[in-house]
């Protein structure tokens, strides 16, 4: 396939953000993009979603931060990051030349903090803001906002009030009713919804009888969470109008296709970047080939095309 053909098949637009491909990177799994520059073509990602950023620097959790699980992994990084000021002054100028859409994932300890972060990011270099109300690994990581529809709506409103950028709200799967969460943030003005963040999990060392992770619990990601993620994307897609960015265990284009069929307009690749750092470019090529095989002209033609068995009257 020629590059031009591939580009035509994959190009998309979300809330006015032009994207080369509908493939973003999962926050916290792709650094600032630059770390992968030797290994994958950064111009073929729809955008880099940078690591969760907070107002003040955070050192993250102590002890063991990751563990492997069957078909996945647990992490409890604990939002280690240099803080918004260092990001704006040092990191941003360094990564701008790569020409990626830069989406900043933010976490706050209070509704006001989310607003302040949004205000600071209301600058031309930033394509969008992803509001993380779903980090399971720190008290102030937003999970309190991510499990209560009213609190989630309050954060969304505050962020919207402080920026003209498209606002993506990232939902936690650690809730009973994902649709209620999605509807609440949509009503509060979210321009897009991304899901899922990690599922709260735990691993125990049977030799020492101690938890493996320093933080005791951590977030589960990778192929093992994919069925949960696909189900949630599908349920949310029925209930909201705003575009959805789907993620959770995407390793191949076929995995991505499930999310598009379920109703996602774009997807993000997370844990797969660790297994194969060339995942984003590989999935882009595979996805273009899939679209061509199915005689589709563009990725948008696949969104929400799930065929349900006919119901008997």
């Amino acid at each position, binding site marked *: 396939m020629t590059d031009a053909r591939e580009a035509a098949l994959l190009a998309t637009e979300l809330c006015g953000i032009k994207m080369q491909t509908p493939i973003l990177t999962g926050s*916290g*799994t*792709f*650094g*600032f993009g630059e*770390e*992968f520059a*030797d*290994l994958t073509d950064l111009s073929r990602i729809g955008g880099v979603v940078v*690591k969760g950023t907070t107002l003040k620097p955070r*050192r*993250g959790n102590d002890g*063991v*931060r*990751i*563990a*492997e*699980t*069957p*078909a*996945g*992994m647990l*992490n409890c*990084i604990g939002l*280690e990051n240099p803080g918004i000021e260092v990001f704006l002054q040092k990191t941003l100028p360094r990564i701008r030349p790569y020409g990626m859409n830069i989406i900043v994932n933010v976490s706050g300890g209070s509704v006001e903090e989310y607003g302040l972060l949004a205000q600071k990011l209301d600058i031309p270099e930033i394509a969008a803001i992803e509001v993380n109300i779903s980090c399971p690994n720190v008290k102030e990581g937003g999970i309190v906002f991510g499990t209560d529809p009213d609190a989630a709506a309050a954060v969304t409103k505050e962020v919207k009030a402080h920026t003209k950028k498209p606002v993506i709200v990232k939902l936690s799967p650690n809730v009973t009713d994902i649709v209620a969460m999605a509807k609440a943030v949509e009503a509060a003005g979210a321009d897009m919804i991304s899901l899922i963040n990690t599922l709260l999990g735990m691993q125990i060392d049977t030799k020492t009888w101690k938890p493996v992770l320093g933080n005791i619990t951590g977030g589960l990601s*990778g*192929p093992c969470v994919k069925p949960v993620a696909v189900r949630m994307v599908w349920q949310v897609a029925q209930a909201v109008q705003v575009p959805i960015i789907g993620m959770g265990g995407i390793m191949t284009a076929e995995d991505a296709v499930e999310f598009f069929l379920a109703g996602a307009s774009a997807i993000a690749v997370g*844990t797969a*970047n*660790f*297994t*194969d*750092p*060339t995942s984003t470019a590989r999935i882009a090529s595979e996805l273009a080939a899939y679209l061509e095989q199915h005689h589709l002209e563009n990725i948008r033609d696949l969104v929400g095309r799930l065929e349900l068995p006919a119901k008997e009257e």
Partner: protein
Amino acid sequence: MILPEKVTEAASVIAQQEVAPDVFRMELSSPAITELAKPGQFVQVRILNGDHILRRPLGIAECDRTRGTFSLFYRIVGSGTRDLSLLVHGENVNVLGPLGHGFDVSFQHPLLVGGGMGLSPLLSYAQAKRGACDILMGGKNAGELFWQSFYAPYVEKTILTTDDGSLGSHGFTTTVFPDIVKQETYDGVLVCGPEIMMRGIARLAKAAGLPCQVSLEKRMACGLGACLSCSIDTVNGARKKVCKDGPVFWAEEVFA
């Protein structure tokens, strides 16, 4: 064109041998990484049996640039290293590397100090500096010092210690270190092994006025400095990543 610093490469197993109980030497055909590798760097090995989401970090031991191969030494400690040990000649892994910052190569006559699997990355230094290094190696017993034959072609002098006295001096590397550095003029000390050994040697090297580098281990996912799994505290308070800023650090940077 500027060569990339690191690549992913399909690498086939050229040789695999159990060199001591549960310790394997594996040779991989991996021309691009062999060409780029510097002493003390490591690779992230992806085991392709479908059971491992995470790669396994392993130090590069020896490079053969003419054949485009490098070797790894690893001990079976869990499912990943067990699965690696089951691979036979001709089977493939995927290798990401070379990664991280290796040892300072400007030393003229350094003393290498190692224990356990820490002797693997040090071997790459001995090989690169053929004839320039002495090696002080410590183990629980004679069996753990199978490394001698691998170091023999590359080092001038080999000094051995065992915890049980079954070979070389009775005691630890730290027991004999002060005397050894008095007998000979070294310009640096490079140490890799259990943390307690590295701390002990680093303290003694400082007392002897010798610059010292240590090589650290921490669980890591990406190996590229992106996921922040392997963050550590440094003496001046700055956070560093073992995968990207290390695994080799100046001792005074990480050990107070």
